């Protein structure tokens, strides 16, 4: 996408929570000479309620872009609005939640003290803080470790505390830098579920990752950065969909004779051999199922013990926090899917 296309697309987007225009970040040395062009003239919009992913290899400018959105770095050129204001405005920060790429927590504080500390920075009342902290500690599975100092924690446990502090103020915009880094598969799944739940509640989530599977699972739109520039940007399914190919999923236990007949017809109609194989669950789903079975048999003596996917105050009204993964859109009919697959796409959509 060219620079002009970026600008046009960004300008036309409604209700932008984050609006970046021709953003540039140059790191300079002691003598103020340019050292690294970390971000080179990028423009994008992030809309309310969407999960936006920033993808790219190490050093591509993801974290720098995120840090500019948080006011931790200042753009060298260009313009950046977050929630309609400067990222450095305290009113913007009051509506933000941030999980950095590593959990930069005070090592001498316990998880509860850490959350109280950050809750106070948001001006939350004591009763609000106590209620939220209880739910958040339950959510991240650290209720049993609430009196240990964070310095004693493993990376994954500290990461969970970092995640909890990012949510203490029930933010409108949640910025997660490598959110699944250091987490076990259970933790990763929990974070992804959390992101999806927050998005359903109308929260905007920006996440940066180089773990493509994580991004694919949760993001509505992505931007792929390389060498400080956006190389591709758009809705996830638009970018990944192979629009000239189709996949037909049959119900379970189709008789082999029926399948043979179908293949013969397909061969005759298409004039070539179609691919047939057994569908596979992905490794994550398989792992989670095994752990779920094991959890019923073994008591977890240390580490994390998650009981809820999301704190009650973060859940949608009427939504019951549960430990299960969200259901996929399995109820949509085959006709609806076919209709969706065959309808022409809006070429201007990003």
């Amino acid at each position, binding site marked *: 996408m060219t620079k002009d296309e970026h600008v046009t697309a960004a300008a036309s987007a409604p209700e932008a929570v984050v609006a970046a225009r021709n953003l540039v970040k140059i790191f300079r040395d002691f003598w103020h000479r340019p050292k690294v062009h970390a971000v080179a003239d990028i423009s994008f919009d992030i809309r309310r309620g969407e999960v936006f992913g920033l993808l790219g290899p190490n050093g591509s400018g993801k974290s720098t872009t995120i840090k500019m959105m948080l006011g931790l*770095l200042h753009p060298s050129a260009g313009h950046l609005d977050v929630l309609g204001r400067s990222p450095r405005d305290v009113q913007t920060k009051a509506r933000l939640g941030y999980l950095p790429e590593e959990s930069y927590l005070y090592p001498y504080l316990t998880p509860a*003290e850490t959350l109280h500390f950050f809750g106070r*920075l948001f001006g939350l009342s004591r009763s609000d803080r106590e209620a939220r902290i209880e739910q958040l500690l339950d959510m991240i599975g650290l209720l049993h470790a609430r009196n240990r100092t964070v310095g004693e924690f493993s990376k994954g446990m500290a990461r969970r505390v970092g995640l909890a502090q990012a949510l203490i103020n029930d933010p409108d915009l949640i910025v997660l830098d490598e959110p699944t880094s250091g987490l076990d598969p259970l933790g990763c799944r929990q974070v992804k579920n959390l992101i999806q739940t927050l998005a359903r509640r109308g929260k905007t989530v920006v996440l940066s990752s180089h773990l493509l599977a994580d991004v694919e699972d949760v993001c509505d739109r992505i931007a792929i950065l390389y060498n400080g520039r956006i190389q591709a940007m758009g809705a996830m399914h638009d970018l990944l969909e192979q629009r000239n190919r189709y996949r037909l999923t049959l119900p379970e236990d189709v008789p082999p004779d029926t399948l043979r007949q179908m293949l013969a017809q397909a061969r005759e109609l298409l004039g070539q051999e179609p691919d047939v194989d057994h569908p596979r669950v992905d490794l994550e789903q398989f792992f989670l199922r095994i752990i779920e079975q094991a959890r019923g048999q073994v008591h977890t003596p240390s580490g994390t013990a998650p009981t809820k996917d999301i704190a009650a105050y973060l859940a949608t009204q009427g939504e019951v926090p549960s430990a299960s993964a969200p259901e996929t859109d399995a109820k949509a009919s085959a006709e609806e899917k076919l209709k969706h697959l065959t309808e022409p796409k809006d070429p201007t959509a990003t």
Partner: protein
Amino acid sequence: MSPIWAIAVQAMRSAIRSKLVVLLLGCLFVSLIGLPLTIRGDGTLAGHVYILLRYSLGLATLILSLATLWASCAAVASDIRDRQIQMVVSKPVRPMQLWLGKWLGLVLLNGALLFVCFTASYAAVRWITHPERLTPVEQAQVEEDILVAQRRVAPRERDVSAAVQAEYQAGRARGEWPAEVATRDILPVLERRVRAQANAVHPGDANRWVFDVPRLPDSGQPLRLRYRANSSGLDLTPVRAVWRVGAPDRVDRQETSVEIVPRTWHTLTIPSDLLGPDRTLTIELASAPGTRATLLFDPSEDLRLMIEQGHFLTNYLRAALLILFHLAFLAAIGLTCGTLFSIPVATLVGMYVLLLLNVGRFIGQLAAWEVHVAQTPDAGWFMWAVAHVTRAIYWGLNLILQPVIAENPLAFVAAGEWLGWGTVGATLGVKVGVYVTVIMGLGAWHLSRKEVALPS
């Protein structure tokens, strides 16, 4: 207030749990207990109390000063280095709140440690001055000279300008002054010489001083003249003399014969009814017959009329407050250094500032001196420029340092001298009200512009 308090509490928790406070308490304990056991005093009770208040407590406050400076330098700089600051400044916290929170935490922690030191020291003083352990003479000394808070009044300054001028003219006539030395450099030297002469008591002669005595809280309390002198004999042989207290025309003038040991403090008790109607007190020191040594006084330092002004404990608490204000001032310097530089550089700069504060009086003298090299024709333009730039630096430093340079309050308390609430208020206003505010402004301004997530 909530973010400031949250940051303050976090700073205190971290200091306590990182064992910094335990280490400090250990050092303070050693200085408070160990020093009086190792330093040999003059053997007197007053000397013992003086060591405890001046040196033990002084060492404890020095340790606290250095620890405060180091901890404050690290407070922000380590947060930047370890990146916790990214978590804090991405919250709705203004740079000034962050700075103030850290500062408040350090001040409260220092306040607590200072309280421990002063309480321990006070308990020790009370223990060694307990009436059951003292003779009646020592008990009287404790009540009159040691555990007291007395205001110090210096004698009225004499006008010596005419005598200085006369001396100058005479010297000029004798050709004593080199032509290249400016008159303004000669006159201060002459003034010191004339003042020394005017305050000397020569053999067979007498000298007189007048004190303007402020209104006393208790008019019946006797006054005390504390004095010391240098002798022309240049040794410690006592010099006999007679004090005459009261105006010369009074019939009830008090006469007291004394033996003055040079360079040693003595006390003369004066009934308050010898004050004149205009609240002046005239004292005269006459050389005793047969004495051959001249007694020399620096009236601003060596003659002190001490007036009971309040209780020792409240004086002691005022000294503690003054030290706390100083620590608060140092914490401000350290914090702002920590926002500007990395920990080692900030600590170095902070220590340099502490050094400047300790040599502030010397810098004042340097700033006041004339640049002689600039007036020497063969010095050259380079030396002229160096001299003027250097002097400008001293002048600027003196301008900044002078308002915050103060006498050590422990010296006052140890000497039983009164520290007024006015001093406490002025120190609070200048050191905390003005200087801390300006330093905070600089630190907060820099923090607001600083990119805290720059790659290291």
